[in-house]
């Protein structure tokens, strides 16, 4: 699978997107912290499996800090997809639509 393919596959799952959102809100978390943040019932093993897919796609990078293994969000693959796909074809339209969506949802 290509680099882009792994990123799209990783992003296709709602739990994995949630894990990225958790790291976006606060970076450098342990497995235990991420497990607590995933509200749906999921085993530690399940969370680990999702983190592994994110790591293989390059979206999560882990580092050791003392005895802890910390997970960091790596935004570069998303940037590469943005530069490769979004910028090239549709940036203006997409940002206009994103603005519209934000505005409409604000008024709900």
């Amino acid at each position, binding site marked *: 699978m290509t680099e882009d393919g792994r990123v799209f596959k990783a992003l296709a799952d709602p739990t994995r997107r949630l894990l990225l959102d958790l790291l976006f809100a606060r970076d450098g978390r342990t497995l235990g912290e991420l497990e607590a943040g995933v509200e749906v019932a999921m085993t530690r093993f399940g969370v680990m499996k999702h983190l592994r897919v994110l790591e293989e796609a*390059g979206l999560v990078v882990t580092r050791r800090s003392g005895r802890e293994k910390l997970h960091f969000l790596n935004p*570069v693959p998303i940037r590469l997809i943005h*530069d490769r796909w979004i910028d090239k074809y549709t940036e203006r339209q997409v940002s206009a639509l994103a603005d519209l969506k934000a505005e409409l949802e604000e008024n709900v």
Partner: protein
Amino acid sequence: MTTTSDATATVQVYRVYIKATPEAIWDAITKPEWTEKYGYGGRAEYDLRPGGGYRVAATEAMVAQGAEMGFGVPEVMVDGEVVESEPPRRLVQTWRLLMMPPETAEEGFTRLTWEIEAIPGGATKLTVTHDLMGAPNTAALVSGARESEGAGGGWSWILSDLKSLLETGKPLAG
């Protein structure tokens, strides 16, 4: 985009895989004739030994563009000191952003680690770890959280541009 709490996280980690040799990536990081071709385009000058100086000089084009947009671009945009230099594998340095307004310069030196590792198949893994303890303004800028204000896309954008330059010979458009 509002500044979210991610921007104030203490450590930021960026990783990119580039189809280039570790030596080519090392040169692209440490030589001014390379650094002016991607990212923000300043000319990086390194004295590559522990305690050696580091500075990024603005190009004439940047000074002119800053004046046009109504802000001063300092002659030295970033400064710091080399902590460890192990070409072409590892570079540890301090890093302070001196752009105006002085809110980042006042935060003092942050710590930047570049790790370069060849992986099977001819690609090289580049990992940039920026320790931004006590530097929330700098953290917001380098995370790209202020891109919509014209502050540029930070490390993600720099590394995406570096990858493009080394793989295609051209930086990203724009």
